[in-house]
């Protein structure tokens, strides 16, 4: 065996490379090269038709003074700061309800998850219709309680809250993930807390939430990254060829501005600099969350 082993290992190394070769090629062509080329393009002026001309750091200088960049960045951060906690709160509430739903849990789970299957374009269309200031269903519902609902789609102050509200409709996968985590909470711990006289709220805050904190952390990280790159719903509802009705400054997310610069204005060099900035911001925010997680996330026993 000791004689045969090295030969076999060598040949299986070659076989392994064959198996992973699709990814190796894909990584080189569609990941490593594009990232490096984006860095290069960000230092050039490039309109696709003419060759790129090297301009040094001009794009980055221009970006610093571009008030649309400031606006888009602010919009994106404001949206993320509202959407991530709101989505977490609603999905936690739904998961807690599902946990207590008994036999009908399957039915309710389906109902809460189904909207997640809706194509984001259709979500964008629904946003315009359901949140329409005059005839929208949401304002009609608010009117039952005597509330005069805002013009969600046209009033700049309400556009982002409207997008957040609509995003709550598609929290289905977070609900499922939290429900799975809730079912792992050991019953003995809850019983012990009950014996000690801890009420529902105390048990939730001091027992349940610490135990499911890895799942919460996962959701916060994934949702934050997704929100920072949020594109389709807002682009569908507020941008594009036909939109002459709405002022869309309030919905100009960073990814939308980047898309416009690259594919509508063909400012590929400038858009590459924008992409580098987004890359940096996503990395920084993620690093910050990793640091925070060391203090706030509680991993039980066998996990690192």
């Amino acid at each position, binding site marked *: 065996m000791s004689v045969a082993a090295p030969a076999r290992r060598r040949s299986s190394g070659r076989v*392994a490379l064959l198996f992973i070769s699709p990814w190796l090629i894909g*990584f080189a062509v569609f990941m490593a*090269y594009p990232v490096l080329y984006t860095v290069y393009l960000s230092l050039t002026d490039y309109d696709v038709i003419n060759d790129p001309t090297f301009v040094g750091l001009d794009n980055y200088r221009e970006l610093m003074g571009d008030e649309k960049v400031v606006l888009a960045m602010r919009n994106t951060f404001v949206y993320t700061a509202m959407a991530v906690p709101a989505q977490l709160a609603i999905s936690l509430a739904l998961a807690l309800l599902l946990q207590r739903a008994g036999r009908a849990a399957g039915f309710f789970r389906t109902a809460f998850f189904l909207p997640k299957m809706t194509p984001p374009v259709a979500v964008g269309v629904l946003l*315009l219709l359901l949140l329409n200031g005059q005839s929208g269903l949401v304002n009609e519902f608010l009117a039952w309680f005597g509330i005069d609902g805002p013009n969600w789609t046209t009033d700049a102050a309400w556009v982002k809250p409207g997008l957040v509200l609509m995003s709550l409709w598609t929290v289905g996968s977070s609900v499922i*993930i939290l429900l799975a985590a809730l079912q792992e909470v050991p019953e003995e711990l809850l019983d012990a807390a009950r014996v000690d006289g801890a009420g529902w709220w105390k048990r939730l805050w001091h027992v349940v939430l610490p135990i499911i904190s890895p799942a919460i952390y996962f959701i916060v990280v*994934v949702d934050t990254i997704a929100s920072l790159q949020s594109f389709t719903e807002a682009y569908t509802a507020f941008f594009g060829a036909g939109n002459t009705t709405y002022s869309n400054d309030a919905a100009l997310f960073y990814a939308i501005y980047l*898309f416009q610069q690259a594919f509508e204005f063909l400012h590929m060099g400038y858009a590459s600099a924008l992409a580098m900035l987004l890359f940096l911001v996503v990395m920084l925010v993620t690093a910050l969350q990793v640091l925070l997680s060391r203090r706030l996330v509680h991993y039980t026993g066998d996990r690192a």
Partner: protein
Amino acid sequence: MSTLDRAGQVGDTGSPIVPDATAARPTPRPRPQASRPRGRTGRVVVGALLVLFTIAFVYPFVWLVSASLKPRSDVFDNRLIPETLTFDNYIEVWNAAPMAAWLLNTAFVTVMATITVTMSSALVAWGFARYRFRGRNLLFGLVLASMMIPGAATMIPTYLIWDSLGMVGTLTPLWAGNVFGTAFYIFLLRQFFLGLPTELFDAAEMDGAGHWRVFWHIALPLTRPALVVVALFEFQAAWTDLMRGLIYLRDREDFTVPRGLKSMLDQFGFGGEWHWELVVTASVITTVPMIVVFFLGQKQIIQGVASTGTKG
């Protein structure tokens, strides 16, 4: 989750914290005694809240379908049952837009994207799970790291690659990148392969089965549950993708359904023609296939999603 990693798409993220081999096995049933609210009032409150939220989550679909069955003048009347029920919009929408072509295009892209990404990701995952070779951990680290890279950082050069191949304006860029596998699926399938007993494959090799045979005839059939999860995730991601449609498709006849729906919104919605009944109907047509897929693969989708968050 539709936040699955697909290169070149800005709205996408993957995550390194993903499942182990339990990905597609049934999760344990909830323990009922653990979750029963004490007392009758508690139960009534929970029940009432569940029903209210269910209405809130399902009603938009009902509203949309109902609106698509109303004549143009009634679309915004918010009635549950249309006053005048008509299927005209479903006929009109085929005249107003090349809907059949859009559906065919999307079906083609979705099927190609799903088959290629499932196969290639399984191949790569098997390479990482079955064999030890120099640089394996480093390379797998790269797989995980690549999930963190925002789509925006690769979007422009990726476009330039397809442009230089003369593929802009065709459907190819919408799926062909999938032949190289996707990091998130590679990770998911590798976890599943690692959960399978090695002895099985060793024994087959002893009996003279080649590397390919072991993969194709033994490992792959055992991985079916995980392959189904990957296929369902990708099916949804490919069917619903708008951004690649915006970047790569030029002529109306070449659009996918999401891209087509956006163009209908631009033309018939706020574009001035004000035929919202067509936009509403096209939205239903875009959404229905996803609802069908969900009901066909509900168990696998729910279990797949549940496993992405736990076992961190």
